[in-house]
């Protein structure tokens, strides 16, 4: 994933706020990137743009040599399904679905995964993340750390190349934070490009690259 001169300007009635200011960087597979910065520095905006869930004002993003600025909404959806897995601070699990069913959700639109394979794949992902005993549990029956690991398993459902995590440990205690970072580190070791936005200094133990963002400018 490559970004060049990325700018994001939020327009209000009387003012303009530059959230990202000419940000350029190349994210490579097999590495864990940590993006750190103060509140309002633009880190969440950056990861949202990288995850194709937020628009940008100018610049260029290429994923697998494809310039995404030329893509239509449906094509962006296809790209998100194929290349990107997103983990959020608030987990966003469907409370009516069991853990494995939450993981199955992204698979429903992936034609490459056969219907009969979905459940098996979801169970395997949860087992790999140490949630074998929680497969049939509803989100409310799990701890925050477990819910976040279910969310990580869901982000891996369609085997994306890029994993984006927006403050994934923001709602977790230290023990669970460690577990989540270890999980993300393992994914990077398996060849995924993992980009984490966080406030936690703990990430420094796991990250291959630390990127600082200040007033919309990225510093490596």
């Amino acid at each position, binding site marked *: 994933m490559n970004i060049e001169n990325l700018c994001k300007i939020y327009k209000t009635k009387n003012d303009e706020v530059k959230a990202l200011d000419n940000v350029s960087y190349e994210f490579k597979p097999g590495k864990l990137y940590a993006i750190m910065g103060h509140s309002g520095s633009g880190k969440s905006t950056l990861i*949202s743009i990288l*995850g194709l*869930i*937020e*628009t940008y004002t100018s610049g260029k993003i290429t994923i697998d040599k494809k310039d995404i600025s030329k893509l239509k*909404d*449906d094509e962006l*959806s*296809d*790209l*998100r*399904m*194929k290349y*990107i897995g*997103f983990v*959020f601070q*608030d987990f*966003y699990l*469907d409370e*009516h*679905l069991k853990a494995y*069913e939450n993981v199955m*959700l*992204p698979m*429903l*639109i*992936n034609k490459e995964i056969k219907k009969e394979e979905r459940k098996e794949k979801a169970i395997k992902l949860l087992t790999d993340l140490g949630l074998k005993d929680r497969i049939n549990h509803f989100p409310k029956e799990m701890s925050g750390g477990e819910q976040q690991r279910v969310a990580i398993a*869901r*982000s891996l*459902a*369609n085997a994306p190349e890029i994993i984006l995590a927006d403050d994934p440990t923001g709602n977790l205690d230290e023990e669970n934070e460690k577990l989540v970072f270890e999980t993300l580190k393992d994914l990077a070791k398996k060849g995924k490009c993992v980009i984490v936005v966080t406030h936690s200094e703990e990430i420094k133990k796991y990250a291959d690259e630390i990127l600082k963002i200040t007033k919309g400018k990225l510093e490596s």
Partner: protein
Amino acid sequence: MNLKDQLWIIKSRLLEKRNLLFMLVLFFVFIVIIISLTFYNCIKFINYSDIVKPNSRNIYIEIDNPSEESLKQINQITHVIFAISGQTYQIGFFNNKSSNHVYITPLIEKEEITLINGKNLKNKNDMLCPNNFYPYDFKDIIDTKNYLKGKEVLNKTVTINNEVFTIVGTYDAPKIRNTTYNCYISEKDFQKLVTNHNNITIRVDKLENRNLVIQELKKMGYNNINTQYINFNNNLIYTGITIILIILFISFAIIYNFTKKKIRYHLNNYGILKASGYKNKQLFHIELLENLIIGTICFMISTISFIIVYNSIVTNINILNIAVYNSEITLEINYFYIFISYITILILIYIATKYLTHKYLNISIHYMLKEE
């Protein structure tokens, strides 16, 4: 994404509180629509009675002993179905139980009646009666002890002027708004019964042609021409339509409001699905399918409840089932109208869902996930 997968997503959340409340409201919406359509149907039925009934197309000329030649001439006028000497009339009859009244009309070949039981007129002194035969005047109509239904009527005899008539068939009287005691005999038998030849009865093919025939008759020199007064109130129909439109508007407002709340409530879920690669079209199909299922469930429950309640009321109140303006009125549930109300609600659901998903799913995923 196929239908089965969409159902898989919906099944888990179908019975959540929000949807149950939506179902309850939709249940009442359906009940109100079905009730108003049923009453509209009754109003329409009564209002159109004078236009539909064959006797409204009759023209009567007061003339003593009309000649065969004059009848022949009238029969040749365009739009005239028949012209006969004598007037269709109410006549007393006797049977072994009591003496009552029937209204005798000659059945001309071109006349359209729908037989329900038995056979058509064939032999001498055969008679056709309404399928719900009630040989009484309006003042007696609440008393149903001699009210005969369907096949019970067949082979009963009626004695008129010492002639014994046998009921060989029953016809659908409400369809042409005939009274519950309007019976048909052959033209030949009718002429035998008619003793007072001081009238000509003419029937025209369509009500709107009645005046054309009257003009022709006047040109031929006939003056004492009478017709039946047609009681038709357009305002009644317009009021009914206005009330239904108001109900539909309120229904749409309710559906729109609930769908909006539902979509906003699920916005986080839709946001995460979009972040996982779902397209707006796929999410619209999920939301639409869920709403259509809710609509269909409510429709079935409300229709069944309505049918049970309505039938119990109609069966227990006989007068409702018998007559308005002395003409039998069917208060049967109009299933076509119920079907129309179902389709209408589905269309309203579709419009509300289409508009609202377009409005909410096109905002940035980032904001969808932040929606509380």
